């Protein structure tokens, strides 16, 4: 709960994982925070947005958010950048060189994965894999207390080694509530912005070759040192007194993140006591600690969500210290979808050779398939309705994008022929129109916030390279799906409003109309008219989300 975020030191309060991350940052004395909203990370930014005494911004996209953060770090500020998993893909271009230059002001990047894709189209991303490309330290908290504590550790590591540190969470960590023992908030005066100074240091902030190769070497040296740190860190914990009862010194479990909680619960349920190594560091791994842990074992079970990154690493370590060790992972723990307590209990029971009376579940023969729906009174109903009246659905290709309007792809609408990533509706539309020329018509949907995020370069490309999709900007005056965050096209503080129509006109789009979709006839006529055009057309369907006041 929000009011708990600012509670006094030593108090125990209930915090959502995302709120605990904010609290950790406040205890560490964060000064500069940027984000682009995305579930399951959105409440982190939304909580910062309500706080004073630090700089916070909703950036136009994650790359810009990170770049802003890099600028703040280079100017000496304690910085946090927050995004969902796909946001990391958007900002990778800036993150690679940032790992090379390193930080000046300590910097923590929070990236929230969404196994099972509860609120994510496009892919079931496992951000941990980027560790091997980026050489960025990655920490994985498992509950709210750790969210807070690990953020503080992350800032400490960043400060000590001058490296950005990535805090990787998953939906069940971000949207888990639990008790958190609070630490001391950093003093308010240290949170002021504007009084930082950029000290020129060309050798440090320029990745120009041949310097970049030296930096690559410096990066690997840093990681070696951080690994030493990881070996001694209490973030990597050997324990395991979960279940009193059967025990074995020949079997062990290695786990991390939310999976650790399921392991502990399962051991309690199964009344088994096994040694457990809980890894708070995903990268760099505490190699010696893992080797010491697996040395005396006959079999080790790796409980991790998604791809078996830990399993593969541990198989390599085992070859060096314990050739006979059987490393069990994905043969018992599914790779697709998030883990659940029952799945983990079953895996452990099988691993241990204990019968697990999986509580028989009567399957339900009645189907309850309640899909997400546009809200009643949502203006998008009007847009989809007009389209259905204006064209024959089978004659038109429909491009989808990321936002509430991706529900175009479910009944009763069923007008979405592709859906990829932020802004891609326009980019892909251009390619299709180039390929099929005049034979097939194409309409794409893109939201106002998504247009600012990644739609503009694609629009410029379509105009410049001359194709003719009809782009409908679903302008509901907010970033609705993630919780109604502002964007550059709406009034916030003293900032000038950047009008979408001005951007579109500046991109030399000649066929442009702004229509309130409640005017169905005009909307229908315009769709028909614009579909005949030989160049790019845009309709801005402007009507606020019903939750916008």
């Amino acid at each position: 709960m929000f009011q708990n975020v600012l509670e006094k030191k030593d108090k125990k309060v209930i915090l959502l994982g995302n709120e605990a991350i904010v609290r950790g940052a406040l205890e560490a004395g964060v000064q500069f925070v940027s984000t682009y909203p995305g579930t399951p990370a959105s409440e982190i930014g939304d909580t910062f947005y309500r706080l004073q005494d630090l700089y916070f911004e909703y950036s136009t996209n994650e790359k810009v958010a990170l770049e802003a953060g890099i600028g703040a770090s280079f100017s000496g500020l304690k910085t946090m950048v927050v995004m969902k998993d796909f946001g990391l893909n958007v900002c990778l271009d800036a993150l690679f060189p940032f790992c090379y230059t390193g930080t000046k002001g300590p910097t923590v990047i929070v990236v929230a994965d969404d196994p099972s894709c509860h609120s994510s189209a496009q892919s079931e991303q496992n951000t941990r894999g980027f560790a091997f490309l980026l050489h960025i330290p990655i920490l994985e908290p498992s509950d709210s207390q750790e969210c807070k504590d690990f953020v503080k550790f992350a800032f400490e590591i960043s400060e000590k080694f001058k490296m950005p540190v990535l805090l990787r969470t998953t939906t069940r960590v971000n949207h888990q509530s639990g008790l958190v023992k609070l630490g001391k908030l950093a003093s308010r005066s240290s949170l002021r912005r504007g009084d930082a100074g950029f000290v020129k240091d060309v050798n440090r902030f320029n990745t120009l070759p041949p310097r970049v190769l030296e930096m690559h070497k410096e990066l690997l040296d840093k990681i070696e040192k951080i690994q030493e740190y990881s070996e001694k860190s209490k973030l990597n914990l050997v324990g395991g007194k979960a279940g009193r009862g059967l025990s074995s010194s020949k079997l062990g479990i290695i786990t991390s993140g939310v999976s650790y909680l399921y392991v502990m619960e399962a051991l309690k349920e199964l009344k088994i006591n096994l040694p457990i190594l809980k890894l708070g560091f995903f990268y760099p791994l505490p190699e010696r600690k893992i080797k010491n842990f697996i040395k005396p074992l006959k079999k080790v079970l790796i409980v991790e969500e998604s791809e078996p990154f830990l399993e593969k690493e541990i198989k390599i370590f085992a070859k060096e210290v314990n050739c006979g060790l059987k490393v069990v992972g994905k043969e018992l723990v599914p790779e697709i979808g998030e883990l659940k307590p029952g799945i983990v209990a079953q895996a452990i029971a099988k691993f241990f050779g204990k019968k697990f009376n999986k509580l028989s579940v009567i399957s339900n023969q009645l189907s309850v398939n309640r899909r997400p729906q546009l809200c009643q009174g949502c203006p998008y109903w009007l847009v989809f309705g007009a389209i259905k009246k204006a064209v024959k659905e089978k004659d038109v290709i429909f491009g989808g994008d990321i936002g509430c309007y991706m529900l175009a792809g479910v009944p009763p609408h069923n007008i979405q022929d592709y859906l990829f990533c932020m802004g891609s509706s326009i980019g892909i539309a251009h390619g299709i129109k180039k390929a099929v020329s005049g034979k097939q018509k194409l309409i794409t949907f893109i939201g106002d916030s998504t247009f600012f995020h990644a739609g503009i370069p694609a629009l410029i490309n379509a105009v410049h390279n001359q194709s003719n999709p009809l782009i409908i900007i679903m302008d509901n005056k907010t970033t609705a799906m993630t919780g109604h965050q502002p964007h550059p096209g709406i009034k916030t503080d003293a900032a000038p409003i950047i009008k979408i129509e001005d951007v579109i006109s500046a991109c030399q789009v000649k066929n442009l109309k702004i229509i309130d979709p409640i005017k169905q006839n005009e909307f229908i006529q315009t769709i028909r008219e614009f579909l005949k055009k030989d160049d790019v057309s845009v309709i801005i369907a402007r009507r606020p989300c019903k939750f916008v006041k």
Partner: protein
Amino acid sequence: MVIVGTGGQGLITLLQILAEAAFSEGYDVKTSELHGLSQRGGSVEVHIRFGKKIYSPMVAQGSADLILGLEAQECLKAIYFANGKTIFLINKFLVPISGQKLLKQEEILKNLKKISKNIILIPAADICEKELGKNVVAGIYLICLACFKGLIPINPKSIFKAIEKIVPKKYLDLNIKTFYLAKHEK
């Protein structure tokens, strides 16, 4: 405990109230919720666990003590968490599913009874609509009732205090009235 319903029924607020109340009684507590697209008018399922020491925020398959259904059809999905002893506390309330025939109350109960006999069906939405003019507080009514009836081992006083702490001022009066409505109905 698992609570199921549909987007907009206030499941997350219920979760916060229960968590705060359990914590005030000295329990360790964890909850799990979902946000974003998964909430848009679709099925919502949230979890709360409290006890001496809690690790997992999610209830394991077949191990819910109580399943609170704010919408009756959604209870069928929660069968995954039920066992022979699980209590189903169900709001007699149906929200149509687009493109699907509305299930009959009897059909739903027949299916639930295959796994557990402990089914309590309460016309909470109707009661709240009739007495308070708002059926949106049906969830509050049911958790209060569950505490008064001893289905949730939390003192109703703790629930009352948690309501005062969590519910925004604007709606507090309505929620307190709901609390007393449940107290008289028990």
